[in-house]
């Protein structure tokens, strides 16, 4: 499993790094980057949570999983 951050979309909300510090860190400008690739065992849910919790839709976790009804996704 992989998780990626689209740098052209990230605006530095920092929620991913706050909730999943084992997967994301912030650069000097506060933008997110992935620190664990591939996603280690046991952090899959955290990766999906970060994807669904990103206000800029900048995070993608793959493989996809069926949409959760509470996701702010189109």
């Amino acid at each position, binding site marked *: 499993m992989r998780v990626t951050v689209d740098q052209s979309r990230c605006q530095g909300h920092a*929620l991913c790094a*706050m909730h999943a510090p084992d997967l994301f860190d912030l650069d000097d400008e506060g933008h997110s980057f992935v620190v664990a690739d591939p996603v280690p065992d046991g952090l899959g849910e955290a990766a999906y949570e970060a994807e669904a919790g990103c206000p800029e839709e900048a995070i993608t976790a793959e493989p996809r999983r069926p949409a*959760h009804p509470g996701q702010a996704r189109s």
Partner: protein
Amino acid sequence: MSAGTESSAPSAPVFCAAHLLDSWDERYPQAAFAELATATDPVRPDGTLVVAARQDMTEFLRHPAVRATDGVHFNLGGKRPLIPLDLDGETHRRYRGLLDPLFTPKQVARLEPAIRARTSALIDAFADTGSADLMPSLCGPLPTYLFIELLGLPATDLPVFLEFKEAVVRPVGATEEEQQANMRAAGDRMYDYLTAVLAQRRAEPPRDDLIGGFLTTELDGERLTDQEIVDICYLLVIAGLDTVTSSLSCLLAWFAEHPDERRQVVADPGSLPRVIEELMRFESPVPLGHRWVTEDIDIRGRHFPAGSKVEVIWAAANADPNAFDDPQTVDFARLHNAHVGFAAGPHRCLGSNLARLELRLAVEEFLRRIPDYEITPGEQVVYTNYGVRAAIRLPVTFPVAHG
């Protein structure tokens, strides 16, 4: 940040924010916001287009034709474009590149001891009395004191800032023209104050604070001009003072009225970061912002003509039932909380990490000192939703710890 809600009188029964502002329950605007989030293509009576659905917002905000200003109207009593709020495109990115590094979680973490100490000192003043109005005794002064420390200004200048932010955020005046004039007058006084401070600081040895940083930093190999520094500080004053004051008042009011949830947090302070995100979603203290569309665009089936002014209602998106499970319920275990309490897009709140830290530490310190409190019997919380949502009257009573 918000430019405040403009109070145009609702004439037609159009589904719009202005109509809601006149009819909603000040204590509980979330219900009205949820209704707005599910309305089809809402507009204000004056024709301003409204973006309120969470699912439309992210795509709208990141469109390159969506701008912060039209180049004529600036936010919050500014006589020049506020840096970086009123800038766009490459110019905006350059300033954010300069400012963002000052407000990362790691940078602001250095302020933790100062925040705890100042919070503690403010609580000391009323902890033995068994009652307090938390707005004037804690929520109001705390962010202003911290901001003064951050900039490196004397604490005795506190009244200058309190007066300024009140005048700009809740301008006095019988008509909109009068309010605008009063806001601009307060803005002029703040520009003068900051210009004088800068002149003094240039004459002194450099210091390790924000102004010291601005005086020595370089943007594309050049030092910032006095005007740039004054403009940046002007925005930080507005953005940093009332928003945290208001947010903290909403949080402490909510905990006063929800004792079970408060006890959970007292028992597990480590849950506070997630709790604060959920309360920022639910309370959405900064309810809206404005954008201008520079060319004809279509977002998710809706047309925005070139030249449109658009009101983006963060508070509605945060209450959108199509984006959040049961949005009217505060759920500390909520997953998928892609809230826009700190706005979104290129103008996402610059100070959000500082705001989060101040809120977390202030709530933590308050609940450590006063874990058991309630709204004073016979009184109630008074909210305003004008400009920024805040508990402007927050009278609480609590048992006094002895020994």
